């Protein structure tokens, strides 16, 4: 993937980091939209034909599932963006004081 950019710093690294960030954001926001507006609202009638326990599926997404998935999305974002930041050496882990070598 972006291996050759590893360790790049300055403007080039920052803009590559920003592009990677936007790609990640885009993907996660598609899921955000799909689970709430998609499953919970637009396709609810269709999904309600199936059920989880006593929950009609569309209703479950609207009142339970989308909330759990929102948390998952933030967790995934934190995990992925941290890796991207480390790749471009832009994370703020060791701002104060400077981190140990290696």
């Amino acid at each position, binding site marked *: 993937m972006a291996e050759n950019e590893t360790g790049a710093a300055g403007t080039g690294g920052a803009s590559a980091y*920003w592009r990677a960030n936007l790609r990640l954001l885009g993907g996660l926001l598609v899921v955000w939209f799909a689970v709430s507006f998609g499953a919970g609202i637009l396709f609810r009638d269709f999904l309600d034909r199936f059920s989880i326990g006593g929950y009609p599926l569309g209703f479950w997404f609207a009142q339970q599932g989308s*909330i759990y998935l929102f948390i998952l999305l*933030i967790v995934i974002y934190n995990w992925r963006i941290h890796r991207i930041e480390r790749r471009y050496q832009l994370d703020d882990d060791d701002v104060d004081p400077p981190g140990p070598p290696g």
Partner: protein
Amino acid sequence: METQTLIYLFVGASFALYIGIAIWSRASSTSDFYVAGGGVNPVVNGMATAADWMSAASFISMAGLIAFLGYDASVYLMGWTGGYVLLALLLAPYLRKFGQFTVPAFIGTRYYSKTARVVAVICLIFISFTYIAGQMRGVGIVFSRFLDVDITLGVIIGMAIVFVYAVLGGMKGITYTQVAQYCVLIFAYMVPAFFLSFMITGNPVPQFGLGSQVNDGSGLYVLEKLNLVLGDLGFGAYTDGSKSTIDVFCITLALMVGTAGLPHVIVRFFTVPKASDARKSAGWALVFIALLYTTAPAVGAFARLNFIDTVNETSYVEAPAWFRNWESNGLIAFQDKNGDGVMQYRAGDPFSGAPEFGEGSGPSGERIVINDPVTDSANEVYVDRDIMVLANPEIGNLPGWVIALVAAGGLAAALSTAAGLLLVISSSVSHDLLKSTFRPGISEKGELLAARIAATAAIVVAGYLGIYPPGWVAQVVAFAFGLAAASLFPAIFMGIFTKRMNREGAIAGMVSGLAFTFLYIAYFKLWQPDANVAANWLFGISPEGIGVVGMLINFAVAIAVAKVTERPPAVVDALVENLRVPRGAGVAQRH
């Protein structure tokens, strides 16, 4: 011990705790006052954000709304949680990296304009006061029912408490008080929910209980039974909504974007040490919020079932004690239209308008309702949705200490949000209006004093709104979210994600989004309330959801104006570059 004694004990103990924390964490600098010194742990901040965010409306009203709206209430559940995804991904880390005290400060600096800053302050003050007025109604309801005091005295007690920790402690005091308040409110919410879930389904976890079978031997799932029971009484099915799809869509989106644009929520992410902590903190906030928000649908459904079970076809003489408690507060009423002394609960309004009570009592001992009965409905029972959570422990016949706990929790929810709102109002007055716009020479000590005076004045105004609630308060809650969605969110979002957005575009966008949304809501809610029906709405979008259109107008106007005006100066380009990376000046120095 008697329930009333327990209530005084629980509420008194929790108030003592909040004040103790406020004195211990007193603010001594403007940085302490505005952003708690910027050193709050992300988990702690997440908890404080959750308490800040979950107001009397979440704690008291939401489960009641769900109980009576069924699927339609999903707009609140998704809308008030989905906004945290936007916050964590699109706003919080960048605003933290920017590293100032207030939302207008970001807008003023990014758009190199005092005008933009003042426009943002106006949006912020309007949003916050609309919101705080609603909190005061919550405080009034809880106090009058549980502390057995006059609403006026209740509001004054609440104001005094908030005064101590908001004015003395500032953000630092509020943060740690809100952590305590979160613990009180979530415990108070979960305990009755566990009891109810266990009683009705045999499964103590409400999130699973709502998807389980009712343990009455019928083999029906909770939602199936609810649909059946409601159908028999003439209501629509619980799991189907009555709102149109476009309206549900727009309200949900307006609430999500509005949440991400609410100043008292955004400002909490300024209090953590690092940009990456702001993201983590948003995640923790959502975890703590989700605990209540995934429980609320269960509480709502169980409460509705219980209510129908205990009230419908019960003779008034045998009515449970809680029914009379709430009847004496005017939040429940019984009008015996067919004169059989038995309460028939059906779809439709029992009588027109809110209940007005006459002198004396009726044949069964009920309070006489003098409203005109609605003749085409067999319904005889009026119930205010707000009582569902507060009355739940009584409806479920739970022990006295649970009732006392819920009283303390409801007050914690209302007071924590009121304090957070007062703080953003006072910071934007002292920091954005005085220090940055009209009196730049003010000393830090003078600024801190001004912040405290502004907070005091805001408390007085909020208290006044609580004691003499103007009729429009209940009508305009949609304002807070709609205006935040249509004004602040697009300006912040474009400030981070497009370098091309300039001063002219941002101001034009904010003003047009704000004006459109304001006029639309005011037209249907204040000026022509009779015209507020789906047929008259623009694209079938209700005033609650119109913030989405306002937001689109804001984006469109801003982009169009920015295209025909000058690029922002190079220094702003550099500012945006810097915002976008979590690591700050450190990188430049190292290389």
